[in-house]
């Protein structure tokens, strides 16, 4: 056993640190709102940051950092641990480390797609030219994805898609939908769905913004009305989309923004060292110390889940159990941390961004709202517990 990073990994971390310092605008901290393991305040999803993010992706791509986790035959570095380091550092700085296309789509394509598709898409994704959004959920199909109604009907060289997606994070700033659609309605559950890449500019697509409870436009409803999708855009085999989804979800669940946890902890520690309440430094208050200490411990636990999951991926294992534990634990901790942070800030915690009295730029009350989303998005906590119990521990399903 060895908990150390290698010298190479350490120097990579330093490189990323320098990159972040050089590339993030000086006022980034004022602008970027990012709560660890939340899905509603990611700067990568906001229209306001699109241009900046697009450019950042190209820069990351130039360094080969968007494909670090991929197998080397597709231009990757074969290291999920390094990919995780990138995410750790970038999320510490509240900056997006990549995109759905690079973190979820790319590695999945590398595993399941045809050679032709890999040749066509992977290099472009690795360069940071393309952005994806995840088109799984529908109004009546959330946890039960197999009950989706969006239909893709075989029509010569194309599929013709009709239906509606919802909670489509970043659909408004992305280029392609990573779309799950029914291709065989008669097939047994989980056997009749297909993943395909759909150009956002295709005729027949309408994107309607939804405002989340943080007051941010991060997700959307998307309507498909006779949208033609070339068959060559199918990812993996027709009717085997669920296999790809399961794989993709493991990559998705790796990204809880571990650095963002460390960041907010650092900021809270700094805050209590310089803030007095009732004439007394908060840092000297035993209760405050106790709360921050237990958060530090829990954050260390998340890190354990995080690095172990990435390492397992590098060992060629499919970390079903670990990625679900990471996701469950990380998102629930995100919520606890938001509550604890509000308790520490006291009444001033309710002051929003812009108020001269607002501590930590009003970030914490925003995080309190956003932290609700973590245990829901990317598979709810109830669903994760089910996966852990059945797939992970082999308990009976019924």
């Amino acid at each position, binding site marked *: 056993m060895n908990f150390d990073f290698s010298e190479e990994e350490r120097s990579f971390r330093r490189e990323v640190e320098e990159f972040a310092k050089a590339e993030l605008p000086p006022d980034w901290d004022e602008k970027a709102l990012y709560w660890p393991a939340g899905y*509603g305040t990611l700067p990568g999803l906001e229209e306001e940051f699109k241009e900046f993010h697009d450019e950042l992706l190209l820069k990351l791509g130039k360094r080969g950092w968007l494909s670090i986790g991929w197998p080397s035959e597709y231009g990757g570095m074969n290291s999920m641990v390094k990919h995780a380091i990138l995410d750790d550092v970038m999320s510490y700085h509240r900056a997006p480390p990549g995109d759905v296309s690079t973190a979820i789509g790319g590695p999945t394509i590398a595993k399941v797609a045809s050679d032709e598709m890999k040749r066509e898409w992977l290099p472009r994704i690795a360069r940071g030219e393309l952005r994806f959004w995840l088109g799984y*959920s529908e109004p*009546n*199909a*959330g*946890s*039960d994805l197999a*009950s989706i109604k969006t239909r893709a009907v075989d029509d010569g060289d194309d599929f013709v898609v009709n239906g509606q997606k*919802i*909670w489509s994070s970043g659909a408004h700033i992305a280029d392609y939908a990573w779309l799950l659609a029914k291709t065989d309605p008669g097939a047994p559950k989980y056997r009749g769905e297909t993943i395909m890449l759909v150009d956002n500019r295709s005729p027949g697509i309408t994107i309607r913004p*939804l*405002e*989340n*409870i943080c*007051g941010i436009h991060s997700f959307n409803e998307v309507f498909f009305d006779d949208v033609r999708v070339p068959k060559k855009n199918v990812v993996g085999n027709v009717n085997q989309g669920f296999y790809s989804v399961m794989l993709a979800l493991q990559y998705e669940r790796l990204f809880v923004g571990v650095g963002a946890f460390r960041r907010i902890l650092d900021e809270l520690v700094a805050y209590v060292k310089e*803030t*007095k*309440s*009732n*004439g007394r430094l908060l840092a000297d208050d035993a*209760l405050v110390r106790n709360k921050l200490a237990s958060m530090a411990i829990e954050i260390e636990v998340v890190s354990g889940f995080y690095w172990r999951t990435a390492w397992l991926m590098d060992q060629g294992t499919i970390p079903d159990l670990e990625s679900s534990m990471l996701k469950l634990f990380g998102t629930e901790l995100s*919520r606890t941390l938001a*509550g604890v942070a*509000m*308790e520490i800030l*006291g*009444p*001033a*915690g*309710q*002051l*929003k*961004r*812009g*108020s001269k*009295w*607002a501590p930590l730029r009003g970030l914490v*009350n925003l995080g*309190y*709202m956003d932290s*609700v*989303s973590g*245990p*829901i*998005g990317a598979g*709810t*906590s*109830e669903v994760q*517990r*089910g996966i852990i119990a059945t797939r992970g521990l082999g308990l009976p399903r019924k």
Partner: protein
Amino acid sequence: MMNFDLTEEQKLLKESARNFLSRECPRDLVRTLEEGKEFPPELWRKMTDLGWTGLIIPGEYGGSGGSFLDLAILFEEIGYHICPGPLFTTVVLGALPVMAWGTPEQKEDILPKIAGGERIMTLAVDEPGAYRRASSITAKASTAGDGFVIDGTKLFVPDADRADLLLCAARTGADEEEITLFIVEKDAPGITITPLQTLAGDRQFEVVFNGVPVKKERILGEPDRAWPIIEDIHRKATVILCAEMIGGAQAVMDMSLEYARERTQFNRPIGSFQAIQHHFANMLADISGSRYLFLKAAWKISEGRDASMDAAMAKARVGEAYRRVTILGHQIFGGIGFTKEHDMYLYHERSMTGDLKFGGADLHRARVAEELGL
């Protein structure tokens, strides 16, 4: 003899409040108020006509002389509908202290107008970085002629913009507890009111006092001796706030129940999943247990008994219970609850801000520890 029932009048009050609020204060209205719209004057008038502003004010001052427990029961319904508006500040932070400590002249001057809905009153105690402690009040009242002038900055003053009268705590002596409460006209020269942008959009303000003159007849209670009064105001306010929070938690559970019966996944209502059923069991136990605490505290206050321990226990537990219940509610609603189109966020915000107001759970547990003789 023990009796956990409400009286017939209380049941009637509760029912009529619920009917009225679901009709007159729908969540759509709450939403627009949160975005900064004025509380509708006609709604305030209707609340006044129902006798809510005068509910606990004695008959001789134009009220109906109800009990503190009655007020708590009313506020559980207000919390259920998260109906904002200056009733809490005016009645709990204004009328109650005047009833308890006002001179006959002050009572005659203020109480009938509050009962009639013509006066809005609020409380200005907290200061930046200073909460719930006498020693940390730095706003100062200096003698000037036969009165005083007040200087200082107050934070988190609810409804200050609409208020006619502010009950302001200021230091009048060097000793820790030498604090005096003044009834200040909002329009007095030297007062600047700035809105604070808060999580729940609930109209809290920064109020700066810059040489604000106040006559000595406007002292509430005795000079230099206001701290126990402030403690008592806070004690009563926390109990009423607990009532509001439990009402809110109940609403979250009711909304979630309705949804869990209808929403299907995997061809079953989600309410049939054991995971979800356990959430509900936890919610109900949390709410019922907490309701017992605040009702007992409210009852003791109504009986004129010491409720220090009970109020502290209630506030410590209810705030956290409301947060737990709301989070479970969110969990049950899934994605739909994370949008501004759904009402859940209104409750989620209030569960957090309610827990923080008048001291968070930690502070009240510290009180409980003191009451235990620690």
